[in-house]
């Protein structure tokens, strides 16, 4: 594997950070982006799954829900902003 799971997690984190407020990303979007970048022979879906798990378990990212589940940065708790 060309990259470590930790590196994948870091890259995913940067992607989430950059698109925050512009586009909501799903787990599948991050996975597709990483596989496109490193190539199918280098990393697979399971690697990406583990990377997402690292982001979640460390609290760096959280799941959000608006008619679908997205991965975002942690935010102030509360209802939908108004």
């Amino acid at each position, binding site marked *: 594997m060309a990259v470590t799971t930790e590196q994948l997690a870091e890259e995913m984190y940067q992607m989430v950070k950059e698109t925050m407020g512009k586009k909501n990303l799903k787990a599948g979007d991050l996975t597709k982006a990483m596989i496109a970048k490193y190539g199918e022979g280098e990393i697979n879906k399971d690697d990406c799954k583990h990377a997402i798990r690292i982001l979640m378990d460390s609290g760096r990212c*959280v799941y959000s829900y608006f008619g679908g589940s997205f991965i975002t940065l942690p935010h102030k708790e509360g209802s939908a902003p108004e």
Partner: protein
Amino acid sequence: MADEKVQTKLLDELEKGPWPSFVKEIKKARKVSPVCDDLLGQLELSYEEKVGHWKHGGIVGVMGYGGGVIGRYSDLPEKFPNVAHFHTMRINQPSGWFYTSNALRTLCDIWDRHGSGLTNMHGSTGDIVFLGTKTDELEPCFKELTEAGFDLGGSGSCMRTPSACVGKARCEWACYDTMKMCNDITHQYQDELHRPPFPYKFKFKFSGCPNDCVASIARADLSVIGTWKDDIQQNDAEVAAYAAKGLDVQDDVCGRCPTKCMKWDGKKLTINNRECVRCMHCINAMPKALAPGKERGATLLIGAKAPIVQGALLSSVLVPFVPADELMDTIKELISRVWDFWDEYGKNRERVGELIQRVGMGNFLDAIGLDPVPEMITAPRDNPYIYFKDEA
């Protein structure tokens, strides 16, 4: 309690009558938690104004999970501060909804410590629903639940909590072990349940026979419905006994058979099992006399859903028959291919059934490596618009 005498003039009307009253239940839970007063207050207001007072979702949960908690907030937090937060927790039910009194007491004790004392037994998907708590209580409640051997169910774009009919536990018609299958699938896919990886929700429902007591064909993305391949088991003496007790075997059994595959000569019932479509009617009508055959298994069907977004769908046949002992392996193998395809091509909020409608069943079958068989359709296409492929 700030306002013990919260006025519930309209809701009080719903304490009258013979059917058990949910208003009485909320009032009973006042002892547990003062939030119930504000819940009653807000609900009374909804009854006056004919409009709900809950705000859109929001984002709360327990650490690391992407589902299992539904955020809920009052749109009148100043007026009803105790329900400013009123989140739901979904707790994964044991297969078949069986409990001991001790297990129920454990759940009640945990919920009294951390929430409103109100539940749904159960939610529509099958989970135990803990109705109403504050964000700060989520982690402590989750900790106590897991220590007691319970875990959260699903919400969002994940594998939703699977459910099963009572199956072999208390039904002679179960053609495979629905409760074990449900339990095993749920444990097999814990990651997919707790960390939403999909374009939208995905539901499994396990029914033991074509009566489909968990509405699998209407509600599950993968419907697993028990059936059999050999002949209906038949006890002629018991058939005669039903007739003697007044059942009109000709009209009410043979006459209602969808393929008219059975004959009654006044003494003996003759079934042409090759023409039987295994609908269950005759077996339902005479449970002592008839039973599903011995070569049992299940039909796998795919794609059911309620109307949102593109319209309601019933599941359609994917694999006509899988023997019971091959069911687990077949489902695991198929589902990984289905999920791979859906991950790759599914749009946000597109259920698997809608994806199949969009790309065509033929292409879907190609993608998951299944051969088309005529059991999948009610009739071949009746239009000539065929997408022929170059086949060298």
